[in-house]
């Protein structure tokens, strides 16, 4: 009886030990086997093929000796560490203009030239998780309960507006349209931006800086991200935040995108001169609460009696 117990215990010990060993092996393997290593290996091989040994032996030699390593851009200005370039290693390399992701060159090289990766990093424009080194972890798609996601194509201009407050100067059509919509629909009747406007709804001055974790995400149909929250909220405010006094406005998808881009560009960050775009000397940010005269309503008949009395 006792012997049998001891025998069993011995077997249990051995099995447990082996299981622990296997787990340790798996941990070690998963730790070493990272997806970015394959991308970098792929890049190295493709680049060696493109350059050729004969054309430029010195460069070829250096590329052949390249070893997979974590690459990152540290930007002290906005405290980011962007490791996107670990996978998107050829983002500035014109040879990879037609390659598949993640090796594809940036689609707008002239834009990248004005905003070098080494100075700006990636997430200041594109959002997402700069520290992550996997496709999933860097939040290319919205992650449940992790609302800092990559900025979608339609809302990219919202990030231009972080620094460029003169929308005309950078030809940001969506931001211009969004600001015009903000004025036309008299959003400032309820919402304040930089001290202009009413106080019925929340102040939107620093909307882009607002912590996304404070947004009610449970009623969203799409992915849980701040960007999607804004879009769905414009479509149907009552559904996204029940009990809100904001009503829905009839807008096309393009108009919603423009207005969302505009409100998502409203930040109150201060940048040092190195990162502040040059402004025209006479640039004054347009007022968002401009009163638009409505011709039909100026006649006396249209004015309700109550208003007349108030004037007295």
């Amino acid at each position, binding site marked *: 009886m006792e012997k049998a117990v001891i025998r069993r215990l011995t077997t249990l010990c*051995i099995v447990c*030990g082996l299981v622990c060993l296997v787990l*340790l092996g798996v941990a070690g393997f998963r*730790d070493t086997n990272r997806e970015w290593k394959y991308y970098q290996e792929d890049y190295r091989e493709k680049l060696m093929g493109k*350059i050729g040994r004969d054309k430029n032996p010195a*460069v070829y030699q250096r590329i052949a000796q390249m070893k997979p390593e*974590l690459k990152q851009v*540290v930007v002290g200005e906005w405290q980011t560490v962007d*490791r996107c370039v670990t996978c998107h290693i050829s983002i500035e390399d014109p040879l990879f203009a037609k390659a598949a992701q993640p090796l594809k060159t940036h689609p707008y090289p002239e834009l990248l030239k004005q905003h070098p990766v*080494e100075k700006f990093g990636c997430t200041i424009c594109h959002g997402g998780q700069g520290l992550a080194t996997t496709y999933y972890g860097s939040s290319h798609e919205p992650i449940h309960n992790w609302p800092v996601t990559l900025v979608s194509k339609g809302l990219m201009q919202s990030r231009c507006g972080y620094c460029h407050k003169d929308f005309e100067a950078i030809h940001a059509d969506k931001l211009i349209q969004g600001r015009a919509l903000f004025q036309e629909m008299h959003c400032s009747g309820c919402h304040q931006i930089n001290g202009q406007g009413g106080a019925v709804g929340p102040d939107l001055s620093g909307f882009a800086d607002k912590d996304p974790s404070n947004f009610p995400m449970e009623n969203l149909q799409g992915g849980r991200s701040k960007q999607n929250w804004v879009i769905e909220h414009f479509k149907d405010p009552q559904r996204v935040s029940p009990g809100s006094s904001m009503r829905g406005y009839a807008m096309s998808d393009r108009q919603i995108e423009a207005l969302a881009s505009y409100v998502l560009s409203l930040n109150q960050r201060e940048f040092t001169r190195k990162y502040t775009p040059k402004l025209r000397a006479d640039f004054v940010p347009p007022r968002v609460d401009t009163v638009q005269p409505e011709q039909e309503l100026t006649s006396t008949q249209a004015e309700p009696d109550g208003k007349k009395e108030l004037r007295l």
Partner: protein
Amino acid sequence: MELNHCGGAATMPGDVDEGRRKFVKKVTVATLALGVGGVALQTGRFLNPNVLYEPARAFKVGELASFPIGSRIVIEGRGVEIVREREGMHAVSLVCTHLGCLVKPVENNPDVGYACPCHGSTFALKGEVLGGPAPKDLPWYEMYMDHTGAIVVDTSKVNRERTKLVV
């Protein structure tokens, strides 16, 4: 495979099988050694980070065209100066070897190339220490041109031979 053998031996009840005992002992010790060794290895790897919170040590400084012959251009925020002469170009560290202040390039002086504002160390045009408390010469960093034509300086590698990049 050997685990199967062990399981097979269990069909003999009662008897003390010395061979089996030895085998079990060996397996246990081997498992322990492998496990502890593996844990130690993984812990060691954990202590040696893949990457640090610091700007990349190798960085692009620009195209060749932005460094005309005879120019000395300080790269802001990186503490290096790119010097291009007729024979080639090199990257010299601007961090004083004394206490780490940024030395200032001295213009139009054939003898003194760099002067430290903190304690007055002076360096020759090639970075050799001339005077003051600095104990060592200013190091040169490895530098190369990548396939896109950009000049890259790698501050993690010191160019001890002081070879110039011929372009």
